């Protein structure tokens, strides 16, 4: 029987459930797939790999007790052993008064995110793509580093209350850093489930163009600057708002910057944000990790904090319904949004630059982290192309700077929103021009 198919999944869950003693509820969460990645640096391929794996996660419930185990083998012995391990954990676990029964059968809206061609890209094709990128950089005496990856991924969930769901997706990613002969670098990336819709040449040329601009960087003092953030830079910082702010458990724990601010203006009025697994630019999963259907959630409407995302547990506590954002249960994080989508604006990146008297343009950020959660103060470094904009033009490269800034404060002063959305990590976002952004220190390159 072929791996990573519905039929294969049904056979495994049938066996696993047959090992459960009477009176014990069970949930099987199975994920697995095949993944390949070609890694290059200094214009050569230096790592190149393929792997296949799976994980069968068994969660058992009896009364108010829960037990769990997982294995990556599907033989009878392995599944039976995992069931017994979960039963042992269940026997000794303390009662959880908040524990919910397993959900019943659900209806899902299908999401198309599988391309057989993409799933089956060969090492030769990946090497050919790297070769093309290197070919464009060598005449300029630049060096490339990056990845080309592809894979296919299966997720299935079923429980003894009759819920069953599965989803198959593919992935493709290309990321490239181009370094010029003075050490200045440029970066670009793109990814989608269908590799034919990724503009490989455009991404390569974008990174090369950045490297061409990134000579003789000027040293600028830290301080407040008008800031143009390219989409990846927006994603690098907003991802923290997603998992530190808009999850209902973070809110209940008192950690979210939205505590006491739901219904209030938290960002600029120009900004509207959803969590939307059905976005064509970044299709997600049709169900969450307890099998609930994903809903499109309006997180921010015209700058006003509108809603949080929920799993069944937080929904019950806050007297609402699950939005389909659960992580595998049980967990300490609670629900988190995984498919952030911003509204579009009407400005091109060129227009943002042309309308800037003095400001900085950021390609992306490095090593962003949370300094203080309640004000959502973040810190991080610029990377692979920080540029000074003066009188409507890029006038020079700038040595990298460290920012330390409250994200809600920075997003409360948006001048322009980009007219094109890009998929970057968990976010589909435009470029943004912010009136003010605080850089706190500098580095040497």
């Amino acid at each position, binding site marked *: 029987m072929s791996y990573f198919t519905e039929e294969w999944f049904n056979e495994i869950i049938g066996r696993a459930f047959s090992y459960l003693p009477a009176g014990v509820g069970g949930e099987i969460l199975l994920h697995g797939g095949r993944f390949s*990645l070609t890694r290059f640096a200094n214009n050569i391929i230096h790592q190149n790999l393929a792997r296949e794996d799976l994980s069968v996660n068994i969660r058992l419930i009896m009364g108010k007790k829960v037990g769990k185990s997982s294995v990556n083998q599907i033989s009878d012995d392995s599944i039976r052993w995992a069931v017994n391990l979960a039963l042992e954990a269940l026997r000794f676990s303390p009662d959880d008064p908040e524990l919910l029964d397993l959900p019943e059968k659900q209806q899902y809206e299908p999401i198309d995110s599988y391309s057989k061609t993409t799933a089956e890209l060969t090492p030769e094709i990946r090497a050919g793509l790297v070769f093309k990128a290197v070919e464009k950089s060598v005449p300029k005496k630049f060096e490339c*580093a990056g990845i080309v990856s592809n894979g296919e991924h299966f997720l299935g969930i079923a429980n003894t209350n009759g819920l069953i769901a599965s989803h198959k997706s593919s992935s493709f990613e290309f990321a490239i850093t181009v370094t010029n002969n003075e050490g200045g670098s440029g970066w670009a990336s793109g990814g989608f489930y269908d590799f034919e819709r990724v503009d490989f040449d455009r991404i390569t040329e974008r990174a090369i163009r950045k490297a061409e601009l990134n000579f003789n960087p000027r040293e600028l003092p830290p301080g407040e600057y008008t800031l143009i953030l390219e989409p990846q830079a927006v994603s690098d910082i907003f991802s923290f708002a997603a998992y530190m702010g808009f999850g209902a458990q973070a809110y209940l724990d008192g950690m979210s910057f939205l505590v006491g601010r739901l219904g209030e203006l938290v960002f600029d009025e120009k900004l509207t944000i959803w969590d939307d697994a059905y976005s064509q630019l970044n299709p997600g999963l049709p169900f969450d990790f307890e099998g609930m259907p994903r809903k499109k959630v309006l997180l921010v409407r015209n700058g006003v904090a509108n809603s949080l995302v929920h799993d069944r547990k937080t929904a019950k506590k806050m007297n609402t319904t699950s939005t389909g954002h659960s992580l595998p249960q049980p967990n300490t994080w609670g629900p988190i949004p995984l498919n952030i989508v911003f509204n579009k604006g009407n400005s091109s990146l060129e227009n943002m630059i042309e309308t800037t008297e003095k400001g900085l343009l950021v390609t992306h950020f490095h090593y962003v982290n949370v300094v203080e959660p309640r004000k959502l103060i973040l*810190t991080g470094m610029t990377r692979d192309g920080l540029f000074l904009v003066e009188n409507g033009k890029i006038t020079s490269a700038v040595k990298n700077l460290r920012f330390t800034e409250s994200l809600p404060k920075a997003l409360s002063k948006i001048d322009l929103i980009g007219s094109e959305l890009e998929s970057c990590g968990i976010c589909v976002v435009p470029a943004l021009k912010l009136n003010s952004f605080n850089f706190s220190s500098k580095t040497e390159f």
Partner: protein
Amino acid sequence: MKELFEAALESARLAKASYADIRIINFRLESLVIKNGIVGTIINETTSGAGIRVIKDGAWGFAATNRLERDELAKTARLAVRIAEGSARLIKEKITLAYEPPYIDRWQSGYIIDPFKVPIEKKLELLMKVDELLRKDPRIKVAESTLRFEREEKIFASTEGSYIEQVFTVSGGGFSASAASETEYQTRSYPSSFDGQYAQAGYELIESMDFIGNAERIREEAIALLSAPQCPTGKMDLILEGSQLALQIHESCGHPSELDRVFGYEANYAGTSFLTTEKLRNFKYGSEIVNIVADGTLPLGLATRGYDDDGVRSDRWFLVKDGIWWGYLTNRELAHKIGEQRSRGCNRADGWQNIPIIRMTNISLLPGDWTLNDLIADTDNGILMEVNKSWSIDQRRLNFQFGCEIGRLIKNGKIVGIVKNPTYQGITPEFWGSCDAICNWEYWVPYGVINCGKGEPGQRAEMSHGASPARFRNVNVGIIK
């Protein structure tokens, strides 16, 4: 089992690989988290699989599978060779491995009490007791206590004739209390943040940490931080306690000493390094009292092992000697690029499913001769920062900014109060150059890091950093005003 290894290696040989190795790993993980009186996380995980690495036409190929059957392993070896053929389309020079003799050996880390034989109810009972103590005050919104145990059984075999069996047992845990008010959210952790302290040891490590005896202090400190003043802003003398100093070593010495970063292999992701090779043995990394040692043999160290995933025996050497930059972390592929004949044994993979890359071994700051009391008494205007809260460093490992859970202000040789949100920022060689005092062996602890990320696809690695509190003069502190 040996027939599985032979099937894979023979398949690689038949496909004309000039070198091949295979790692078969069985991994067991037990992780328990109690959050606010209920089970927050429960993990009982067992995984196994094989990773096969080959050199064909002078290039690397790697393939991995969870299916440990003879035919499947032979097929995976052929896939690794095909991948190497793809890599060979774009190389400048053929891979040359530094010499290492073949070993037939068995190595195992030590423990007194096997953590997997301790009943789960005993573990849960400890976590529930801690949880109860932490939540005695309603201002504590979140109490989390964690225990985690790992056992990795690994066999490495290569076409050079090595057959090495190793068993690693890791234990650890910790707890935290987070207090919240209308405007503040403050956390204290024990013995350090992000799930606590870890070592290659057994359950005796858990028993030695005295969770119960420290829970009430941690609770009260979290609550006190809600009304504590903000950390002052400006230049002050800074004393870092051991666990924060361990992370400072990790980020500003460990990562930049990885030779693959130095040669640009991580340029697209983790970054490169300011410690370029012309600096070797002539660059002033820190003050003369700064001596930093890499040690794959350190007792309790999370990176301690008999052999790395190149089949190289563990080593101990200086990275920084009397303040001068002295050495790198190397593997068999790159050692020759700095003129070394042998690898230092730093090639490690995250499980069977990843390709080995250069990872930190245990990296430690050698102790000085101060006591902490004397160090505080010798400081006129300073701050003692404890337990990491946030970390960030640029991609060449120069500009860093760290946040800690609690700061203790020092005036005229005495601690005069606590401050919230303490942060400090610096440039790596200037910072280490300002180190003027290090506490002695009595304070020296190998702090375990279990979540070090590197590589594409991302790999997790574990290592320890021995450190005792140390003082740094005239440091920028207090970023939040």
